[in-house]
């Protein structure tokens, strides 16, 4: 309880709060080492919209800077940007030497997180056909098996709950399946790295494949859930058709689309 009302030493009220926030900032992505050419083009751009650049914090992106070429002339570049009214405050995507040079100019070294995100985003598209290969192989693995038993199989952690899961309660089956043989109330939350089976009415939330297992499924006798999710793909109650409510269903991912199917 006390943690929520943390104050500074003694009973004085807190003098500041430490919080995280995200900002959208302009990035100057250097494509060439030639600082003269950059200066010329930048001048032309700023002339078109001088107000836009005034006192604007900017980040210098070095991820596309030609490798092996000349080193980045940080003093020149920073001076140039400041001259146009911008506030260069950090770099990203640089190599070790570039980062050291940037630090010497008191520029912040920003994480590469976003750069990576955009790269993977682009990468997803060409990789799309790839998953179809293992998917095609899957049926052969399952041949001869009477039921498509989850691949987690024997030895994996398995959690069984026999009492009702009440509003405000959370059950997380780490590393395996979760079976509930009682009611799951609205406001309760079920989570499992594997599949979720509910044999009473499911009125709360059920999130299967918590660690991104897209093969995880949710099985329930009586679907009245507030939210269902498999590997982060979710549907809220409002988007569950009436004819699928109150009946036994299975919920699974099919080509990144969450499907709810009568059993």
């Amino acid at each position, binding site marked *: 309880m006390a943690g929520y009302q943390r104050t500074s030493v003694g009973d004085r009220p807190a003098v500041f709060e430490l919080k995280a926030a995200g900002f959208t900032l302009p990035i100057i992505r250097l494509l060439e080492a030639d600082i003269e050419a950059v200066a010329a083009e930048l001048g032309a751009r700023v002339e078109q919209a001088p107000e836009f650049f005034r006192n604007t914090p900017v980040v210098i992106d070095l991820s596309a800077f030609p490798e092996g070429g000349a080193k980045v002339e940080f003093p020149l570049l920073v001076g140039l940007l400041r001259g146009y009214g911008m506030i260069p405050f950090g770099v990203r995507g640089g190599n070790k030497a570039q980062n050291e040079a940037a630090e010497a100019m008191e520029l912040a070294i920003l994480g590469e997180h976003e750069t990576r995100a955009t790269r993977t985003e682009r990468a997803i598209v060409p990789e799309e056909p790839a998953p179809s290969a293992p998917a095609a192989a899957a049926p052969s693995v399952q041949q001869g098996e009477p039921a498509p038993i989850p691949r987690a199989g024997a030895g994996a952690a398995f959690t069984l709950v026999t009492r*009702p899961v*009440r*509003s*405000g309660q959370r059950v997380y089956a780490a590393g395996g399946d979760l079976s509930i043989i*009682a009611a799951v*109330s609205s*406001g309760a939350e079920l989570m499992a790295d594997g599949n979720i089976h509910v044999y009473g009415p499911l009125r709360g939330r059920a999130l299967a494949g918590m660690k991104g297992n897209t093969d995880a499924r949710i099985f329930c006798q009586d679907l009245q859930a507030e939210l269902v999710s498999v590997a982060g793909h979710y549907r809220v109650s409002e988007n569950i058709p009436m004819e699928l409510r109150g009946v036994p269903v299975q919920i699974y991912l099919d080509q990144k689309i969450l499907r709810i199917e009568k059993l």
Partner: protein
Amino acid sequence: MQGWATDHPILEAATLARIIVITSGKGGVGKTTTSAALAMGLAQRGHRTVVIDFDVGLRNLDLIMGCERRVVYDFVNVINQEANLNQALIRDKRCDNLYVLPASQTRDKDALTKEGVGRVLEELAHGYDFIVCDSPAGIEHGATMAMYYADDAIVVTNPEVSSVRDSDRMLGILSSKSRRAESNEEPIREFLLLTRYDPARVEKGEMLSVDDVQEILSLTLIGVIPESKSVLTASNSGVPVVLDRESDAGKAYADTVARYLGDEVPHRFLQVEKKGFLKRFFRG
């Protein structure tokens, strides 16, 4: 649930009191009315009973029990060892088996410590058959203290969705934050008591039915108390409604006490009362 009373070694040997918490989560559903009625009902059936008000700072039980002018020491005084139990307990004038331990009006819920409450209950457990704990509303400290040592819980619920959801939340807390849960003992026995039930409004679809509530909460139903003017009258005059043998609510509470003690009693007042010609004629 029938038959447990005789099976239960505690009741047979009558060594330690059974601790019953009356809880709900939501306020204004009838916890204090129920605590008073249940305690009086148990005492009238010959069981030595004490009813404790856990609503420190907003004490009301003394009013409902009609002993507000006899309060000298209270629960917090006993916890802080400023008074002993015999000084604080108020014997009911109508029933020799019933005692009231009032809450403090000038303190707040933080005065209830787990150790202090445990010590008081432990001491009471040796001299009584039942200890009824009247929980404050909410799920904070006062409510968790009231339920922590409980053996049985009666969850008081009104037939409307917000009360049902709060009861459900309370049931979750009961099964995880009690002494029995923490020490991995047999869990608290939970019972559902529906109060302010109005069959006419249920019939019109304006109120949840007994079945609706039971389906959501999946609990043993211990009683249904019909909406009744006699409850307010009883509260205002400091008489536990169970003593009003003429009223439906009084009868329903008496049935509830009987069921708690293991009797098999059919539920009454679930249907709209058919008004006879004369009744209709005279009452309009």
